[in-house]
Structures are given as structure tokens and as C-alpha cells.
């Protein structure tokens, strides 16, 4: 597996170098533009940029392999397909973390350069902010990768995006349906909504209640999600025709 991870970095070093220049550059432009136009960082936009940069950069390995049709090479080497999946997860996750570190370092240097503390910077650069972002990034990656192993790169990314959009759309659709059906059915949708809200509030309050254990809980949950994602990917890739 180590050889597979090593080859990812041998094959992509030139692209990784480009990414290492591009990420701080784009991040700086985004920070400067937001500070100049809005007087501070817009956390939503900045989070979106961070996710886009980190996830896109983590797909450099799969992208380069797909462009070179390298799946065939590795599948014909004396190596199990599962090892190819494990290596791909490791390389991609490492790349997500490296990209995020670059963004954090750019944020830190921006704080120093602009000599201006921003509440958004404080949140992003806090342990809670960093942990949440890394967790979120790894979860997104774990969500997308099984699609990529099932349908190959292009179709996999498209399928993952469509699924994500469906998830996002499902929230307002669900709300609309609840409103529309309330009164038609005898079922008490208001109670149902309140129950869901209570559960969400409870989840959000967990770090305050559990303190440091909340991080442990998050770690366990994320690890489980990644584990499930890897199991699915191995299953899909083992059955895929190359």
C-alpha cells in the first residue's frame, strides 16, 4: 500500500506544487476581496471556498490517474484492489488536510498582514473551527469516494453532486410537504417538527455538555463514517469492470 501512496506523490508532484501555490493565492484574494468589500470575512462564503479548494485538490490523484487510464496498470500489478482503495483514501485525505493547513496558514498570515482581528478569523482559527472544518471535509470526501469507485471519476463526481443536491433540496421540500400536509392528515406534524428541532438542538449543545468528550464522540462518529465509506468503496471497486 505504501508503494501506491508513494506513486501518487511521484506522479502528481508537479500538480501538487501548482496547488501549493494556487491555494494560498486564491485564499488571499478571497480574504482581501471580502475585507475590502464587506469589511470582514463572510464565514459562509469562506467556508464554501475552503471546501471547494480542499476537495478539488484531493481529487488531483484520481483525476491524473483517470486521465492516464492508470486504473488498468495498477489492477494488473500484483496488488489487491482493496489496497488500491485504501491508498487512494489515504492520499486524498492527506491532501485534504494539507490543503486545509495551507488555507489556515494563509489566514494566519492575513491576520498578521492586515493587523486586524475578525470574529470569523477567530472562529476559523479556533480548535473548534479547525476540527469542525476537517471533520466536515473528511465526511464530504467519504461521501464522494464510494461514488467514484462505483462509477469511475467523471460519473462518480456527478452522481455524488446530484445526491448532495438532492439532500439539500430535500430539506425545503420536506418542510413544504409538512406544511402542506398538516391539516389534511390527522398526524400532528407540528409535534414532529418540534421533535426534529429538539434533536438538532441536543446535537448542537453536545460540545457544551460533554466538553472534551464531544471531540472524542465526533472522532468516533467520523471514523465510523469513513470506515463504512471505505468498505463500500472496496466492495464497489472489487466488482467494477476496468
Amino acid at each position: 500500500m505504501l508503494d501506491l501512496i508513494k506513486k501518487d506523490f511521484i506522479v502528481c508532484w508537479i500538480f501538487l506544487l501548482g496547488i501549493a501555490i494556487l491555494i494560498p493565492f486564491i485564499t488571499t484574494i478571497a480574504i482581501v476581496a471580502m475585507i475590502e468589500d464587506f469589511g470582514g470575512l463572510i464565514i459562509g462564503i469562506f467556508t464554501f471556498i475552503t471546501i471547494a479548494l480542499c476537495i478539488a485538490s484531493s481529487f488531483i490523484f484520481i483525476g491524473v490517474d483517470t486521465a492516464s487510464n492508470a486504473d488498468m496498470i495498477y489492477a494488473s500489478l500484483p496488488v489487491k484492489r482493496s489496497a488500491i482503495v485504501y491508498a487512494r483514501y489515504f492520499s486524498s485525505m492527506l491532501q485534504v488536510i494539507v490543503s486545509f493547513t495551507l488555507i489556515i496558514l494563509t489566514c494566519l498570515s492575513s491576520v498578521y498582514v492586515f493587523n486586524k482581528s475578525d470574529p470569523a478569523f477567530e472562529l476559523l482559527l479556533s480548535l473548534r473551527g479547525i476540527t469542525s472544518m476537517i471533520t466536515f471535509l473528511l465526511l464530504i470526501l467519504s461521501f464522494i469516494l464510494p461514488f467514484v469507485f462505483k462509477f469511475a471519476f467523471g460519473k462518480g463526481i456527478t452522481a455524488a453532486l446530484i445526491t448532495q443536491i438532492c439532500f439539500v433540496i430535500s430539506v425545503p421540500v420536506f418542510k413544504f410537504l409538512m406544511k402542506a400536509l398538516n391539516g389534511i392528515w390527522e398526524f400532528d406534524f407540528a409535534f414532529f417538527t418540534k421533535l426534529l428541532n429538539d434533536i438538532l438542538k441536543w446535537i448542537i449543545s453536545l460540545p457544551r455538555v460533554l466538553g472534551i468528550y464531544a471531540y472524542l464522540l465526533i472522532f468516533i462518529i467520523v471514523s465510523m463514517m469513513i470506515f463504512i465509506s471505505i468498505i463500500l468503496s472496496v466492495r464497489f471497486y472489487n466488482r467494477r469492470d476496468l
Partner: protein
Amino acid sequence: MENVIEIQNLRKNYDDFTLKDVSFSLPEGYVMGLIGPNGAGKTTIIKLIMNLIMKNGGGIKIFGKNHTEHEVEIKSRIGFVYDTPNYYEHLNLKQIKNIIAPFYSNWDEPVFVSLVDKFDLPLKKIIRKFSRGMVMKAAIAIALSHHADLIIMDEPTSGLDPVFRRELLDLLYELLQNEKKSILFSTHITSDLERIADYITLILDGKIIFSRSKDEIFENYAIVKGGNELLNEETKKYLKGIRTGEFGFESLTDNLSEVKKKFGPDIVIDRASLEDIMYYSNLRNNHA
């Protein structure tokens, strides 16, 4: 004599193509040519052997072992050459070698260096700047540098000019002369195989037509020419892909001795090349 490859009733279904109950075997130390027109199923068979695609039925044994259960062990003994080797075009041959070599415990660097010298390949030139022949030679150098017992080559000579093809076959022949290696070589350029193959397997429309030794094929197959009056229900049984014209018929037989008995001295018999065999067999397939 042990079989290096044993395939039994292999099946693979696609929406528009089916590989139907393919069975053949390759004994150790021999060269088998897998021939057939484009789209006949040669690459599908090779991909199934390499476990690059999943079979729908049947069994594959390589070196006497199930090809999926012992995949890593088996693949460490196989040298595989693709029809279009997929190497990273922005890397040079040395970098490609550095990526692939660690996967083989018996990688032999001096052998690789000598092959690179022999093939006159530049180690530091990026693959994008290689000609197709050079890419193929690079693929062969890599495939032969870990003392593989079985070499599988999928259309290694297609797209190469005749001079280059001849050179490549000579190099291959020379390399394999003194070694107990087995080769499965798929091609639609049958003349390549007449020189180096011991066994020939013909596949048409996903179905094996025959899998026999080359000598046996040339003993039994022949082109038969004669007058149209010789054709009747009885004699047609011995002929494949009959082409009739104003001056007579021309066809293939796979039973030369019987044809000689049935037709007597009234026919002309010519040696059938592998290309003839492929052509007439396909004709029968299409027009029977």
C-alpha cells in the same frame, strides 16, 4: 505437461456482446496466439484472465490456481503488455519504472537496463514524446524485467508499421528463445503469429472456433478450389465459407484428408494461411 492457463466455459455478458462458453488451455513453455477480427472478444478474454473485468460464469486457472483467489501471487508471475499501454505521459521511462518496479519482489534492474539499451529507449525522455513503437517497447521491457513466467500481450503489434512490427517480433523471439516462458499473444495481424506461435485459438463473435497446435492447423486446414458442379449437400459438409463465382468455388476446409477422398483429383488445394482461416471462418459465421 502442465497448463499455465486453463479456461473452462468462460462467460461474459455485455449489452451488445457476449463471450460464450470459452474454453482453452496453454501448456507451459509455449506461445499461443489468440486471433480473431476486431471486436471478436480477444481483449475481453485477456481482461478476464487479468481479472480486470468480472466474469459471469466459468472458471480461470493460472499456474493451476484460481485467478481471483491467488490474484497477487499470480500477477507477480505475469508480464502484461496492453494494446495501448497507459502510462503517465508527463513522466519519463525512468519514473515509470520507479513506480512499477517496487510492486515486483523479483524485479531485475540489470535486465531492465539491458532491455532499455537493446530497445534503444531513452530513460529521461517523457512518454508523450515517445512514438507508439517506443511505448510498446517500453511496455515490453517492463513486462520482461521481473522474470515473468507468463507474458500476456494484447495486440502488441497493432498500429505499428511492418518494419517496426518485424523488429519487435524478432526481439521478442530472440528474448524468449532460451527461456521456459509461456506467451499468450492476441492479434488480428495473423502473419505475426505464423512465425512465433505454437498454438492458435481462433475466436469469432465471442465464440471459440478452435484452439489447436499450429502444426495441426496447417495439416488439416487448406483452401479448396474447384468447379461449381462438385458442390452438393454431401461435399458442402466439409467446406467452410464457400465463395462461388462464374469459374468455380473457393472455400476452406478443416478436414483435408476427407476432402481429398471426397473430391479426388478434380480440385486444387492451396495452403491456408491463418488469415485465410480467419477470413473463411468468419464468412461461414456470417453467411451460413
